[in-house]
Every structure is written in structure tokens, then in C-alpha cells.
């Protein structure tokens, strides 16, 4: 009888690893680590607004040391126009077709599924509540549903299906409180394989048929930040500032990127040309909400897949 008791408890713990967690947030920490530190290959479907694409990802991790991580990612579109992204520990480069040519451009960083968690997931605790749901199968693997519920009205709900064995996100749905989806991604298949062969880490472009045009970044460094935000939303921190010259005009456009670790808002500040009418109001394009405001000769626009109240708050917070 004692054996029965022990077996039933072991079964209970094995079937529900959550039971064994001292800190429930460890599951998020594990999920963040898994997408970076595992080697895997798979195909997932990604939907944003009403558009769905099939995407292949190959990720290799060869260890880390004091100089950084030996990590390689290749993501390529399987449907529609040609598109590929490559990332190692320091660089991110994208390729996508532009009629006859292929455009290549660098990016600063990437938060592409499944590596969407911040480097330090602990920051999410202040603004999200963690909940555990049922277990479901995704891509032929058992997964645990984990939900990050926003603690205020300025964020969305994040639903994750975390692989039971590795904790890597197998599926993700971003929704509002009424279960309207902003975006979702889900693996159709995924395999975990460790290999030192990196021959796949190169663009699949036929150089003879297509020209690769590098679009260099026009980013400028600016020290004069003439703006300030009177009220920042809890948890949102400025994570990037990009200043560029508006093509054809001798004026600068500033883009400030704010994030709470999962949600991102871009705040654009650019002067309005004298002969142009500034835009004021709100609009949704696909799953992206935009709030526009005119202030002291500048067009302010905040953009993000976040609730309207959030983009509105950002656009109305700019002062100078």
C-alpha cells in the first residue's frame, strides 16, 4: 500500500512538473533559456492579422563563454515572397525579395518566435500575472499552457504552450481580454538535434539570377533629445532610439522604442512640412494600433500591437 502511495505521488509530480516548482516563474525563465540554448529545427505557422505564413527555423547553440554566446539562427519564409533572416550573437541580417532583386538589411536585434521572451524574464513579474492551464499536444509533443495576464489595461494577454520536455514555446497566442487574437504562432513540427555543421547558415539566393542590394541604415546618433515623456506607463522602458533623415527632406525623424519585455511601442516624432496637414486620431492597421497627435509643429505617432489606451497614452505623453 505504501508503494501505491509513493507511485501515485511520483506520477502526480511527473505529470505535473508545476507541482515540483518552488518558483512558478521558473517556467518562464526556462522557456526563455530554451529558445536560446537549444539546437532545434522546425516549421511553424505564423499569423498576424489575417495573414498566415509557414516559416522554417533552424537554431544552433554551441555554448557560451565570457565573450558571448555561440548561437546561430536562420529563419526563412516558406510561403509568399522570398524572405530570410540570419542572426548570430551580434548581428541580425534580413533578406527579402523586391521584384527582381533581393534586399539585404541589417537589424539591431530580433524578437522572433519562439525567442520572444526578454533576456531577463523577471521583469515581467511586475506587470503580468502568471497562470497555468491545461496540458495539450502541439506538434506531436506534450505542452503545458502558461498564460501571462496583464495587471493593467495597457497590455495584452500572452498564452504560451511550453514544451513539457524542453520548455521551449511550441505555440503562442497574443490576445486582448475578449480573446480577440492579435497574432499567433504554432509549430507544426520540431526536432532537437545537436550538430556542429553550420553549412545551412547562409542565404539561399541564386546570385547569378538576382542582385543583392544592401540597404544601409541611415541611422544617425543624436545627443539632443529635446523631448520628454511626462507620464511613462509602468513597466515600459525605452529600449532603443533610432534617428533617421526623412528621405528627400532635410529633417530628422526620431523613433523611440518602449517595451515591458513582451509588448513593444514605437513613438515617432517628426516635424510636419508646412504644406502638409498633420494627422490627429486613431486607426488600426491589421493588428497594429496607431495614435496620432499634432504638437508644437511636430507629428507624434505611437504604434504598437497593444491596446489603444496604450498607444494613446504614449502619443499624449510627449512634451517639449
Amino acid at each position, binding site marked *: 500500500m505504501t508503494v501505491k502511495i509513493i507511485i501515485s505521488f511520483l506520477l502526480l509530480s511527473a505529470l505535473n512538473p508545476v507541482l515540483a516548482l518552488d518558483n512558478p516563474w521558473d517556467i518562464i525563465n526556462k522557456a526563455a533559456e530554451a529558445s536560446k540554448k537549444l539546437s532545434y529545427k522546425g516549421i511553424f505557422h505564423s*499569423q498576424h492579422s489575417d495573414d498566415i505564413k*509557414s516559416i522554417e527555423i533552424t537554431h544552433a547553440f554551441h555554448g557560451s563563454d565570457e565573450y558571448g554566446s555561440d548561437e546561430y539562427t536562420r529563419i526563412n519564409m516558406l510561403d509568399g515572397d522570398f524572405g530570410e533572416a540570419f542572426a548570430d550573437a551580434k548581428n541580425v541580417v*534580413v533578406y*527579402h525579395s523586391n521584384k527582381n532583386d533581393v534586399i539585404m538589411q541589417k537589424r539591431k536585434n530580433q524578437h522572433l518566435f519562439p525567442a520572444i521572451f526578454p533576456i531577463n524574464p523577471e521583469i515581467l513579474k511586475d506587470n503580468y500575472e502568471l497562470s497555468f492551464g491545461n496540458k495539450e499536444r502541439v506538434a506531436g509533443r506534450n505542452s503545458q499552457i502558461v498564460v501571462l495576464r496583464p495587471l493593467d489595461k495597457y497590455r495584452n494577454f500572452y498564452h504560451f504552450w511550453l514544451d513539457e520536455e524542453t520548455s521551449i514555446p511550441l505555440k503562442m497566442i497574443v490576445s486582448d481580454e*475578449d480573446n480577440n487574437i492579435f497574432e499567433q*504562432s504554432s509549430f507544426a513540427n520540431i526536432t532537437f538535434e545537436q550538430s556542429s555543421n553550420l553549412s545551412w547558415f547562409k542565404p539561399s539566393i541564386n546570385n547569378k539570377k538576382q542582385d543583392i542590394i544592401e540597404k544601409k541604415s541611415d541611422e544617425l546618433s543624436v545627443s539632443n533629445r529635446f523631448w520628454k515623456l511626462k507620464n511613462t506607463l509602468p513597466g515600459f522602458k525605452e529600449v532603443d532610439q533610432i534617428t533617421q533623415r526623412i528621405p528627400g527632406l532635410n529633417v530628422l525623424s526620431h*523613433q523611440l522604442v518602449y517595451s515591458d519585455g513582451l509588448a513593444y511601442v514605437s513613438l515617432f516624432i517628426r516635424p510636419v512640412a508646412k504644406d502638409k496637414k498633420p*494627422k490627429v486620431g*486613431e486607426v488600426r492597421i491589421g493588428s497594429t494600433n496607431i495614435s496620432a497627435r499634432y504638437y508644437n509643429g511636430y507629428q507624434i505617432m505611437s*504604434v504598437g500591437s497593444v491596446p489603444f489606451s496604450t498607444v494613446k497614452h504614449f502619443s499624449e505623453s510627449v512634451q517639449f
Partner: protein
Amino acid sequence: MNEKISSLFDNEIQGNEIDSLLSKKDRGSDIREAMQSYQMISDAIQGKRLPKNNLTDKIMAAIDKEPTQLSGFVATKESLGQNTSPSEYWPMAASFAALFVIGLTVFNGDSIKAGNNLVLVKSDIPEDIIIAHHASTSTNMKYFIKTKD
């Protein structure tokens, strides 16, 4: 309300009465306090030794720090769309019609009215702003790789 708690204590309460008992937020401690009182009375009448410590408040203080348990991603009735499908499988060449949706509505509108603000339309927003936003922040590959022509 306390009469319901008294019935609950005796396991004589009806299911819908439990709903109404718990419908008001923050009644949990009142309910527990009443049940503790009834337990004390019951133990005394039955000649049982009264317990030293009631741990409920301490346990609930610890539970309150725990993440709320939910049984999965639950679609609301209102969010059921016409394109819902009971199938959970996404075929390789997924099309919108075959999309797996557990009764959820997908945003696809291009312009909406928002409160008392002016209504903008898609063409009011410079394309480079949208591209620049996605290039810095998107979790979606299709939007991440897009560059301005």
C-alpha cells in the same frame, strides 16, 4: 448571506448558491471567519478539544501570492467567429479558411472609430513608420524582414 455559509458548513448548500456566495469579491475572509466560528461551536458542543491554531489565513496569504490557476485558453461565446474550426491541425500550406482557431476573432479591419477622436485611415499613416516599427519590434517574420522600397 450567513445563512448560506451556515448551509455550506453543513454541506447542505445548492450549487447555484455557491455561485451567489462567491459572486462578490473579497468575501472570502468573511466566509472563512464565519466557518471558523461555526467549527468552534461545533467542536465545543461535541465535547472535542478546540484546535490550537487555525492556519487558513496563513495558507491563503501564501496562496494569494501564487499565480491564479486557469484551465487553459478559453474562448468566450462572443468571440466565436464564422471561420472557427474544430480541427487543431494546421496544414503545411495553411490558408485562412483552414486556420485553427478555438473560437476567436481575428483583427483584420483597416479603420475603426475610436472614441471621440478623429477617424484616420490606413493611408494617413506613412508606410515607413509601420515598416520601421516592425523592423525594430516584430515577433512576426513577414513584417520583420520588410524594407521600404
